[in-house]
């Protein structure tokens, strides 16, 4: 607008003083680095303190391998269960109008406001030795607590809302017109869902699965209550980290197993950001929630 060279750039009325601006950005950066980045770096630094071969040895040791296997099995059951539930709940909630819908949505979110330890506790109260079904299970030699079924149940509980809560706002924003058109043109219910609904929600679904899986593999509190901490048998990876950390002389091994979990978290973050960047428009309904 003006060609007069000013000795300084005039500050807009709704901008902070440059010093304040630098101070705010600095404070934010220092806080994020100290509080968030440093713990992540610590994990890898401690894992590699005794050299990379020691770290690899700690990860490929039999108990660690069995922990990795158990984690994969538990997540491999819990995630598909919650995907099935998430699809079904979001179909019912977003495509139909019925009484008590908002109450149902509240119930779907419920596990998020329950402490992880309480999430494990509830199953012990039912299936534990002195739980409701305890004597029956003991007489019939069925093991749920301190065994795989308990671990799967606890994992399913804490990851319960992830897929549904990503899909519900997304499918609500999309409405039902496209499905109605498909039905009018003679498509069946399953064909409509598969060819019309699914392509619209695939990135949101992937987003939900990503977060669900990260939590399922990393869950500690809930699984800790129901697992029994038997090394090589009922220890998932996070529990193996605890066992190693508390065992004398296995400090670095604890961080080596941790580094695998940290890597999972890191990859999840990168994929999540990539999805938000690449498919941000389709996920727009998710923002601002």
């Amino acid at each position: 607008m003006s060609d007069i060279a000013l000795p300084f750039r005039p500050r807009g009325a709704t901008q902070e003083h440059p010093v304040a601006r630098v101070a705010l950005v600095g404070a934010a950066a220092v806080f994020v680095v100290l509080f968030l980045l440093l713990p992540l770096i610590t994990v890898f630094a401690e894992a590699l303190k005794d050299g990379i071969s020691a770290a690899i040895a700690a990860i490929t040791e039999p108990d660690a391998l069995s922990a990795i296997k158990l984690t994969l099995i538990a997540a491999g059951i819990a995630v598909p269960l919650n995907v099935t539930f998430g699809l079904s709940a979001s179909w019912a909630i977003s495509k139909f109008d019925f009484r008590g819908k908002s109450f149902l949505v509240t119930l779907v979110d419920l596990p998020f406001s329950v402490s992880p330890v309480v999430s494990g506790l509830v199953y012990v109260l039912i299936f534990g030795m002195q739980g409701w079904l305890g004597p029956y299970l003991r007489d019939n030699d069925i093991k749920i607590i301190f065994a795989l079924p308990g671990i799967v149940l606890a994992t399913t509980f804490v990851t319960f809302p992830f897929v549904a809560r990503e899909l519900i706002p997304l499918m609500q924003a999309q409405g039902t017109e496209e499905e109605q058109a498909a039905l009018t043109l003679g498509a069946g219910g399953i064909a409509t869902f598969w060819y019309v609904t699914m392509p619209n929600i695939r990135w949101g679904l992937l987003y939900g699965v990503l977060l669900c899986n990260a939590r399922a593999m990393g869950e500690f509190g809930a699984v800790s209550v129901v697992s029994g901490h038997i090394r090589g048998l009922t220890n998932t990876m996070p529990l193996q980290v605890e066992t190693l950390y508390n065992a004398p002389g296995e400090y670095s091994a604890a961080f080596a197993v941790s580094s695998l979990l940290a890597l999972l978290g890191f990859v999840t973050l990168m994929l999540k950001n990539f999805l938000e960047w690449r498919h941000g428009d389709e996920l727009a309904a998710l923002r601002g929630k």
Partner: protein
Amino acid sequence: MSFAGALPSTYWRTRSALPGFGLSLGLTVFYLSTIVLIPLAALIIRPWELGWSGFVAEVTAPRVFAALKLSFGAAAIAAVLNTFFGLIVAWALVRYRFPLKRLVDALVDLPFALPTAVAGIALSSLYAPNGWLGAPLMSLGIKAAYTPLGIVIALTFIGLPFVVRTLQPVLSDLSRDHEEAAATLGASRFQTFRRVVFPALLPALITGAALAFARAVGEYGSVIFIAGNLPMRSEIAPLLIIIKLEEFDYAGAASIGVVMLGVSFLMLFALNGVQSYTAARR
């Protein structure tokens, strides 16, 4: 819904041409009941075998009361810290451009993505007396790890994303018009922030703080390694639940669980109140 008029509606739902309502709702309710509702009912019923007075005696026993006080107190302090720092981080991310901004933005989600046990041992190694941050703090005479301060640090770590992610969309939707008007009328930048921007952000700040608080109260994995776990001093409520379970004191464990669950629900209701109040004012 365009088909609604053509189809009769029952008293509890609007008819729709789409298939699968019965199947999907039935599956949802069945699965929800099996995994969540029946187990939670078991939790709520269990303490009553002690009777009301037994329940009260259980949760006011000195060790239990100290643990509950610590969990709620540390979570409250962490929520306040997170509100303050979360506002600064969200403000910097929305209003300014600076190098590596995308990375900082992505890092905010780290506490969601990093398994809590991993965060726990990392924080406790960082703040241990010989750790990278623990050693400098120690020379200032501050002992962080294995004290209640360590608990606050871990809970601050775990709660930050709730505040930042709640504030960010509100802050970026905030129209600059009001700020410009305030500046035109002679307000200083700080006055504008205090009287114009801050009131608009307040509901989001309260929501974020409440979410961070609710998460922190029940947090176990990231706290347990840094806490020290001394009864009466640095023992959090979730740990006491596990200790009671190991002693086969199911009713005692369930009593603590019910108190924690009750407070979470109260927070949830209060939050819904705040949200519908602000929605009504818009």
